[in-house]
């Protein structure tokens, strides 16, 4: 319940009926409420995706286990990947973008509030459609059940011949629908950032979060569209007798791979760039220094966006491309590591010479730096194509990308929650529960994903529902499973923190962290109209200028 309603003494204000509150939330076009709705939705899917992960891990705890059948296992890893990427990571990042971008650029809302709401509901509908597949009619080999083709849905496994029934169609349609939602949000973010900045906020004075979400939105436009196109082609193959990926008619399975990864690789940058944005806002505040090298950070992000559109076939090193193609994608993949490394160094440079405060949000950011460094380096290992001829399709890759998405992106998201929850709710999250969350999750994460590199090096492929004893994988998999359960407990602590702090947390005030960007100049939570009057800015840190009039940034920029 928001609102800083100014009451006249002696006037009775009745409590709003619950139904009205529900109606307000369902019909809202306010970017802040939609942001919160995105976060709720993604937390719900996080729990579902997490349960799927635990089922996978229990089955793989030891060799020749029979906890679930192969059919169920294959559905679990498909649903886990699809859920986590499309219905957890993307929505929560869109949610933060929605909430923060207008506030940080001094606007009252996004450029197109109704489009915003439409995009949110499309995304959520997509998620519900995916899960509806679980209750879809059973058929031959569970053909009316959840999709089991892996989250990349390689052809020709997705052809009617090999995937009868409708399970694959649930995968296709749910992503098609939510893809339109993503494109809508991307268009909204771009229009907002380019057209709604407050006076004085030139692009070079915009907070890095706004810049990075702008770049991310541009990438969404270019990356989601190939997935949409491929899915239309798949539907044409499955239902209109098309031959796009039909090997018997001369069609090419490799074409699906190219199209999918032209989406798939930029997609992971769509996920990580907003995480970079969180770091670029949180680390400076808790180091008590401005971000080191702002222009370089922008340039590096733009370079990453460009270069990342040229690396996709590093997911296809084993497919049998010729040596020149493999070499090309090897060097572009290594090249994208350069601007990424530059960003890590700039965050280090921000902390260097600062006065670091180890609030929970900062702890998660430090965890990100450590883990993203390792993830980037295992990425470089796989960029060396011959090394990838061993590592690809093994648990080494699974370990690598979970290091990026969980050890990197999810840690940054947790940091963002701890940092901006006070702004959104008016209350501080408990630092004590936060520390339990952090340390438990850190331990669980490393038990699982650091150890997971080893079975990969020892020859364990991915997407297998069981494995032979005597391969040396048993004990490692047991440790990995234990780590998964530790992470699950940490997530429960986090969810408990969110709920308990909402009712019992300390009042936050408008600026609990002594920060410098515009969202901290308004109340917590902000009123529906964001700012009493549209701010005017003269530097990148308008609140620093206000708090330090003897030494404003505007003098140096």
């Amino acid at each position, binding site marked *: 319940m928001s609102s800083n309603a100014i009451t006249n003494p002696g006037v009775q204000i009745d409590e709003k009926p619950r139904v009205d509150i529900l109606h307000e939330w369902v019909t809202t076009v306010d970017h802040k409420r939609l942001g919160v709705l995105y976060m709720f939705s993604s937390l719900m899917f996080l729990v579902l995706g997490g349960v799927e992960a635990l089922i996978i891990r229990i089955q793989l705890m030891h060799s020749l286990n029979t906890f679930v059948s192969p059919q169920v296992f294959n559905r679990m890893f498909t649903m886990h990947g699809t859920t986590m990427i499309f219905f957890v990571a993307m929505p929560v990042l869109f949610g933060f973008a929605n909430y923060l971008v207008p506030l940080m650029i001094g606007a009252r809302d996004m450029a197109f509030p109704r489009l915003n709401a439409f995009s949110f509901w499309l995304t959520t509908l997509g998620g519900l459609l995916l899960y509806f597949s679980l209750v879809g009619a059973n058929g031959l080999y569970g053909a009316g059940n959840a999709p089991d083709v892996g989250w990349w849905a390689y052809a020709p496994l997705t052809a009617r011949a090999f995937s009868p029934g409708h399970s694959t169609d649930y995968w296709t349609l749910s992503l098609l629908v939510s893809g339109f939602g993503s494109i809508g949000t991307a268009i909204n973010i771009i*229009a907002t950032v380019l057209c709604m900045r407050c006076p004085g906020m030139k692009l070079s004075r915009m907070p890095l979060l706004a810049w990075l979400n702008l770049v991310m939105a541009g990438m969404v436009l270019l990356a*989601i*569209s*190939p997935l949409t196109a491929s899915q239309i*082609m798949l539907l044409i193959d499955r239902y209109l007798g*098309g031959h796009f990926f039909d090997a018997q*008619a001369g069609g090419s399975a490799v074409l699906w791979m190219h199209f999918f990864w032209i989406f798939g690789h930029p997609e992971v940058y769509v996920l990580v760039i907003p995480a970079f944005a969180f770091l670029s806002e949180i680390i400076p505040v808790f180091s008590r220094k401005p971000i080191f090298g702002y222009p370089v950070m922008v340039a590096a992000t733009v370079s990453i966006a460009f270069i990342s559109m040229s690396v996709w076939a590093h997911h296809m090193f084993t497919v049998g491309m010729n040596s020149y193609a493999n070499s090309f994608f090897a060097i572009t993949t290594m090249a994208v590591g350069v601007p990424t490394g530059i960003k890590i160094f700039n965050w280090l440079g921000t902390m260097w010479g600062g006065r670091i405060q180890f609030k929970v949000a900062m702890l998660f950011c430090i965890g990100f730096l450590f883990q993203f460094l390792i993830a980037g380096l295992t990425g470089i290992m796989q960029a060396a194509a011959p090394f990838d001829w061993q590592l690809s399709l093994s648990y080494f890759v699974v370990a690598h990308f979970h290091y990026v998405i969980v050890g990197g992106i999810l840690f940054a998201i947790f940091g963002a929650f701890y940092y901006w929850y006070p702004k959104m709710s008016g209350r501080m999250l408990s630092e004590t529960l936060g520390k339990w969350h952090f340390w438990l999750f850190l331990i669980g994460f490393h038990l699982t994903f650091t150890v997971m590199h080893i079975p990969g090096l020892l020859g364990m492929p991915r997407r297998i529902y069981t494995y032979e004893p005597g391969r040396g994988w048993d004990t490692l998999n047991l440790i990995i499973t234990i780590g998964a359960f530790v992470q699950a407990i940490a997530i429960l602590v986090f969810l408990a923190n969110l709920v308990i702090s909402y009712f019992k947390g300390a009042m936050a005030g408008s600026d609990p962290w002594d920060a410098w960007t515009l969202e901290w100049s308004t109340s917590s939570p902000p009123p529906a109209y964001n700012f009493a009057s549209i701010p*005017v800015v003269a530097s990148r840190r308008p609140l620093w200028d206000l708090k330090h*009039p003897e030494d404003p940034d*505007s003098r140096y920029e």
Partner: protein
Amino acid sequence: MSAMANPFPETPPTWNLPYRGKVAMAGLIVAESAIFTIFVVAYLFYVGKSLSGPTPREVLETPIFYTICLLSSSLTVHLATKSLARDKVGAFIGLWLLTIVLGGTFLYGTGQEWHRLIYEHGLTISTNLFGTTYYSLVGLHGFHVTAGLVMLSLVAIFALAGRVRMQESRRVEVLAMYWHFVDAVWVVVFTVVYVLGR
């Protein structure tokens, strides 16, 4: 505070940012271009690779007349929006309706061509790789033309009811951008299917 540097910045004398309608439409065009690019790549990749069935050379007839119709409709929609910007609502309505007629004619031409291909040559989307890629690419474009015509017709209805005046010219321009995009895509599709792919 007043003795030191003024921490409250002055409002800049001019602060003009782009019109968000145009920026949003540009974003949509970028996304749509990416979708079309994938279909074009698939088309080019599969040129000459059909294992059986009719080939482009055997069955395609270059639709010169209908192409001229569609490309002229870009001119008419451009003139229409310029008229509206100058408050010449009559000219606007006339040119706008002409745009719809030209676009509709193009769509009719596509339908006619498909009828001929299906019933005289037996080429359908499931016949061979050429059929699949041809109908998908041309069909995707035709779908976008249809969507455009629906939007143009809506505006025409509002215009005929007297609701579209000079103040709406910015919004009408956004829709015209979409229509220009549809025409530009046709230039590419035409080149790929009727020139390169033969």
